[in-house]
């Protein structure tokens, strides 16, 4: 297998009231290029922590995280930010759109600090919004969009820089089941059409059938990996 991302003996420990809490404990995991991985587990089992480590949003307490052979643990925080900008697309449960910005502007957010020309930026954002079927809502504020629509905008934002890795943390968690289905269809088609390595979490094991690989987490440990 062509390994795209891997965790070697990763432990992420939080100190809570003086007591160490292992959000992840000695996790080994390899993810192949173009895989579609679903991470399942109860709430608090460490799914978000796992995703954050893979996306370079967080650093392990012990062990190492590699992406395309690069040890993320050794990068500076600026390099990590750059890595996220260039390689990773994040989709969150709560959409995380900025409420003062229109859908189109929200999609451009990743590009803003990297000094791209505004017209070029908006053209690019318009193109992704178009693919998400949201171009007619480009000038709407997040507050004027439904949950499903907001999530489409968020997905557009994660795609604007053509990421190699798409990380979706419970992307359907705040959506009703029908809308959730549609979002899953969308992510599935993205994965299929673009070949992006996709890692998604869910506490709902029913989704499992869509994924190539299902990783089961329990109290910070990988208890099962199903191909």
């Amino acid at each position, binding site marked *: 297998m062509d390994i795209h991302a891997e965790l070697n003996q990763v432990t992420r420990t939080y100190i809570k009231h003086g007591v160490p809490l292992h959000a992840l404990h000695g996790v080994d995991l390899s993810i192949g290029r173009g895989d579609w991985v679903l991470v399942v587990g109860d709430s608090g089992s460490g799914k*978000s*922590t796992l995703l*954050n480590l893979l*996306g370079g*949003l*967080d650093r392990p307490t012990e062990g190492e995280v590699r992406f395309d052979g690069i040890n993320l643990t050794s990068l500076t*925080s*600026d390099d990590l*930010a*750059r890595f*996220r*900008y*260039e390689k*990773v697309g*994040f989709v*969150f449960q*709560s959409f*995380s759109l*900025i*409420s*003062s*910005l229109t859908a189109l*502007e929200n999609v451009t*957010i*990743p590009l*803003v*600090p*990297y000094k791209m020309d505004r017209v070029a930026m908006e053209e690019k954002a318009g193109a992704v919004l178009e693919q998400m079927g949201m171009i007619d809502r480009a000038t709407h504020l997040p507050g004027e969009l439904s949950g499903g629509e907001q999530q489409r905008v968020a997905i557009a*934002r*994660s795609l604007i*820089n053509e990421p190699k890795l798409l990380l979706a943390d419970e992307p359907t968690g705040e959506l009703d089941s029908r809308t959730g289905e549609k979002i899953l269809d969308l992510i599935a088609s993205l994965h299929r059409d673009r070949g992006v390595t996709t890692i998604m979490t869910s506490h709902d094991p029913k989704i499992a059938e869509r994924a190539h690989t299902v990783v089961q987490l329990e109290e910070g440990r990988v208890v099962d990996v199903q191909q």
Partner: protein
Amino acid sequence: MLRFALRELTRRKSRSLLAIFGIVVCTALLSSVLCLAQAMRNAARQPFDAANADFVAQRELAECPFALVKHAGTLGGIPTKTIARIRSLKEVEVAAGVLELWAVSGRDEKDRTVVTGIEPEYQKQIGPLMQSGKCCTLTDHQRGGRYLGFADTQSCLLEKPYADRHGLHLGDKVSLGGTHFRVVGTVQASPGARIAAGEVYIPLKEAQNLLGEGDVVNAVFIRAANPESAATVETRLKELIRADTRRGDKLVITSDLNVMSSVAGTTILAESAIRWVAGAVALVVLLLLIKFSLSSVNERLREIGTMKAVGWQDRHIAKLLALEWVLMGAVGGLVGTLLGVGAAWAYTAGTRLRLPALLNNYPACAKTPPPVDLKFSLEGSEPLIVGAFLVALSMGAVAGHFAARRAANLSPAEALRRL
């Protein structure tokens, strides 16, 4: 980035407005206090600048009896030998004495003229005939009007308003305490307070003869050789004049530095108090702004976390926050300075301060309006206004710096966990 910052500010309207309001209050207070102080300084300096003098030394008597000719107001005599001593001080560039008199000039004993005896050899360097470094304008120069000559006797120079009111022209005679003086010229000064300005000017010698108290003057104009020696001059003056005058008289040395305390004593006190208050307010507002900026970062944790997640570096976030706060500082500073300068202007426009009676002795029944109004101006307050604006900007920058530092130090994963 700028657009983002603006959007953010307009979205959190009440928040931004509150912060801007704080900055406005500070800046308005600061700029108005600074501008007022400057206007006061300008007003205080104006009569001294006009006379080309740094100090005026006088003796004040408790009371003056009525006479056909008498010292103006409550002035007392200073011997002319004192002027010579003052002139010989190395810190003094030039000094000239004047003798201000009130002389009955008509049949009615209430019809008194303010007469200033001047030393003709100094009239173009220092004293009541000066106007911002030059002599007052002669209005009848074309017709042969002139200043007082060194050898003139029984001659006088008139102020234009006095000449007009009495219908006096070149060659006419003016009666002062029974003696007649021939008009040799008429001068016109621009408005503004002038020290020891009379209605009629005569040679010092003749004024002394009229008064009959011997070789005395009752006001000495002094210009220091350079600004640094001004303080020494003042102490030396006190010693000299005290030695040459009777004990128990009140010696008064006035300069632009102390003239205001006798005109508007409370204003000067209040000014320095207000300065402290303005400083304290600025400090308190700054602390509040910092607290405010930190708490606004807390409110936006999720947003900041999102930006970091999609690739913003810490310094990008810091730049955005700093930009927001500097913008607020700029808007607050602009509005604040406008308000402050406006308030200072309105105050000075509506306030009338006059020269202390000692410096311009007009009898209560004077018919010509005396030149006693101090001229306020905001001249020279440009750097203060810029300074107040910069204070506002830096308040924004400081608050923004704290917000930026806080936001930059946030771990993105941590920030995203908070809802």
